[in-house]
């Protein structure tokens, strides 16, 4: 009997062992290195997978979707949306983890599989610290509409899209965003691209591969980032097939000067703290304390305000930022003792009015003046004096209504202000470079947020390349020319802006920058198709 129990015991034990020796299915491998361009989780997470017809239906069901579909075209491909994390570097060269989106066209149609070109996309300014352009599945994420936009324009038409969220957003623990820091932005973009190429190899669609064609584009802040990326990739000896930076602040010093001269752009109260924090962190030369630059109403805590988990409306409501009042409506005066300089400065320090500006310009710029206001009067006077003494040639030409020429668009030789030095350093005119492959700068002359002068200054600087056809400029507000492939986009945008003005009056101008975005992206796609 004992022997029988023994046999039974062994049998039961064997049964148990067989069962307990089981395994668990594996998840993604986690990178052990934090070198630049390393993909953290391999394979990355696919957040969503939609086929072409479902994507069309989903877009069609949203408020702006039908118009987007009309502009971007019916999706030819489905899109797989991947969320990937990668290692990059901060402005201080520290290893930093960041995240982004990889969008892969799917489906058996010819433009959707096999070797496909990559569009490296740089997103626009956002204050939302949780911004995640991969998150197509959550319509409450502030990146959702931009995600859908680039998916519709590029991925659903057969382009693999790589779009980093940037340092300072989503999982990044950097604590701020290196806003308009060209070198840092380019490093982020290039590292995202490297990691995304790794991610592509382990995606759900192994038949879709990188064709080797690389197109770089971006809108608004992303337009700047795209241009900075082209500059850095060329310097690193990497080929960009073509690029289309759109509505970006490329000529930063001139743009900064224009704003301080009173041409306050829409969004300036948000752009200012993003820029000053970025440059203060990178160079430490913007201020000794925030109240050097900002009025006492807002100085406290402004260096850690953005990006924020609180909505922009919430920040305005809680008095953390003024909605539009960048400068004091009781304008300060210059008192350098140099009569001519002070007279010129005081003209520029005054609230914009005729005859310096047209009535519509004045109406737009004047909304940038109020009380409480963001920038301290002392700082503004110092900036304006410096910008007159150490003039940006392009801004002076514009101010004096001169034609911009390549000989007349140089940066200021020097500056007394840290912020202006930083703007000059990050200005795309610096570094004596030009695009070696085709570039289209799309924008619109009526843009109240990022002035079109940014593209015009770069085009003037690169006049020989514009004449040679390497660099093109598209003004969506320009007169449509017969035979111009972008004329239909100009007509369509101008019709839409006219409708907005008719419906909402002059205040509709505030939305023009955002309105242009899909038109510029479709123009970029058309441009890329011409540079196969």
């Amino acid at each position: 009997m004992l022997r029988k129990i023994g046999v039974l015991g062994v049998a039961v034990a064997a049964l148990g062992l067989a069962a307990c020796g089981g395994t668990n299915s594996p998840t993604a491998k986690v990178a052990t290195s934090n070198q630049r361009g390393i993909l953290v989780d391999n394979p990355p997470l696919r957040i969503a997978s939609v086929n072409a017809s479902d994507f069309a239906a989903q877009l069609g069901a949203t408020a702006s979707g039908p118009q987007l579909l009309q502009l971007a075209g019916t999706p030819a491909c489905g899109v797989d949306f991947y969320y990937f994390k990668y290692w990059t570097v901060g402005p201080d060269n520290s290893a930093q983890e960041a995240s982004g989106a990889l969008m892969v066209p799917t489906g058996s149609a010819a433009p959707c599989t096999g070797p496909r070109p990559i569009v490296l996309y740089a997103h626009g300014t956002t204050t939302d610290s949780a911004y995640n352009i991969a998150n197509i599945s959550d319509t409450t994420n502030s990146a959702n509409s931009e995600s859908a936009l680039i998916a519709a324009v590029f991925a659903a038409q057969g382009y693999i899209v790589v779009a980093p969220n940037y340092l300072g957003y989503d999982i990044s623990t950097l604590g701020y965003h290196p806003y308009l820091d060209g070198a840092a932005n380019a490093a982020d973009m290039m590292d995202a691209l490297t990691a995304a190429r790794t991610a592509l190899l382990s995606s759900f669609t192994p038949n879709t591969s990188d064709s080797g064609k690389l197109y770089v584009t971006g809108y608004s802040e992303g337009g700047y980032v795209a241009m900075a990326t082209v500059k850095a990739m060329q310097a690193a000896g990497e080929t960009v097939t073509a690029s289309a930076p759109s509505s970006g602040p490329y000529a930063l010093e001139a743009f900064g000067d224009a704003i301080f001269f009173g041409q306050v752009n829409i969004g300036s109260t948000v752009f200012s703290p993003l820029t000053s924090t970025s440059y203060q962190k990178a160079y430490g030369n913007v201020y000794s304390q925030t109240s050097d630059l900002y009025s006492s109403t807002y100085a406290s805590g402004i260096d850690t305000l953005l990006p924020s988990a609180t909505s922009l409306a919430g920040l305005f409501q809680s008095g953390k930022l003024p909605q539009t009042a960048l400068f004091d409506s009781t304008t300060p005066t210059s008192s350098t003792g140099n009569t001519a300089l002070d007279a010129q400065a005081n003209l520029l320090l005054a609230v914009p009015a005729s005859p310096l500006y047209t009535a519509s310009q004045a109406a737009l710029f004047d909304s940038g003046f109020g009380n409480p206001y963001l920038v301290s009067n002392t700082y503004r006077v110092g900036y304006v004096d410096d910008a007159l003494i150490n003039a940006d040639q392009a801004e002076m030409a514009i101010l004096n209504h001169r034609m911009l020429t390549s000989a007349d668009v140089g940066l200021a030789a020097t500056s007394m202000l840290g912020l202006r030095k930083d703007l000059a350093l990050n200005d795309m005119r610096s570094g004596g470079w030009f695009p070696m492959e085709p570039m289209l700068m799309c924008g619109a002359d009526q843009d109240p947020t990022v002035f079109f002068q940014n593209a015009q200054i770069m085009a003037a600087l690169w006049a020989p390349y514009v004449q040679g056809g390497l660099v093109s400029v598209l003004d969506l507000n320009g007169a449509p020319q017969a035979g111009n492939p972008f004329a239909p986009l100009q007509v369509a945008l101008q019709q839409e802006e006219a409708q907005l003005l008719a419906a909402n009056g002059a205040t509709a101008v505030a939305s023009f920058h955002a309105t242009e975005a899909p038109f510029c992206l479709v123009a970029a796609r058309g441009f890329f198709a011409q540079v196969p």
Partner: protein
Amino acid sequence: MQKKIVTLAVGAALALAATGAFADQAGPNDVRLGVYLVHYDAKADDISGPYVPPGLNAHVNDVQTLYIAYVRSLSPHFDVEVAFGYPPLTKSEGRGPATVGSVPYNGQVISTVRWVAPTLLLEYVFGAPSSRLRPYVGVGVNYTKFVNRRSTPAGNAASGGPTSISLPASVGPAATAGLSYEITDRWHVYASYSVAQVNSKLEANTAGIIRTSEIHFWPNTLVISAGYSF
């Protein structure tokens, strides 16, 4: 697979019966072999976590498996039972929208897991020891460990990549009611119905993204078995 298990159980019971024919006298020990018909009666919270659309849930399919138990008689009316099932391969099917994005979900087998679920029961047996038919009831404790946890290709497609699954072991109450029928002095057949409570928290890890669901099972099982006393 399930047919095989039933065949195996019946075959093993017959084999034991054959050896028992030559044994001497019955003792306080009883081994039982049979078939477990398990209905999981699982209720799970909708899967929650990053990038999960609302309304995703799962259903756990019923299984049959091999039942094996050792029963020790403590007194004419009290038995202690340790019951095992051969760890059944249990399949979970997606419940919710037909597709997540364009990925099929509802009705797809999204994961499989094996259960090692020993149950210890104290049973009260009614009737005189000499009765051929004796009902019994019992209460006890169930320990459930989940092994061989796998996300299927369909599960990986819905989750967005290769997915590992964590399901911590559970300890919960169990109860049973059954009937024993004496064929010979040593041989009995049994039919019983048991329930147990199993609680666990599913954690699915896809590329470092964790999705969770609290799962409550009330596995109710019908057991048909043959036992040999020695």
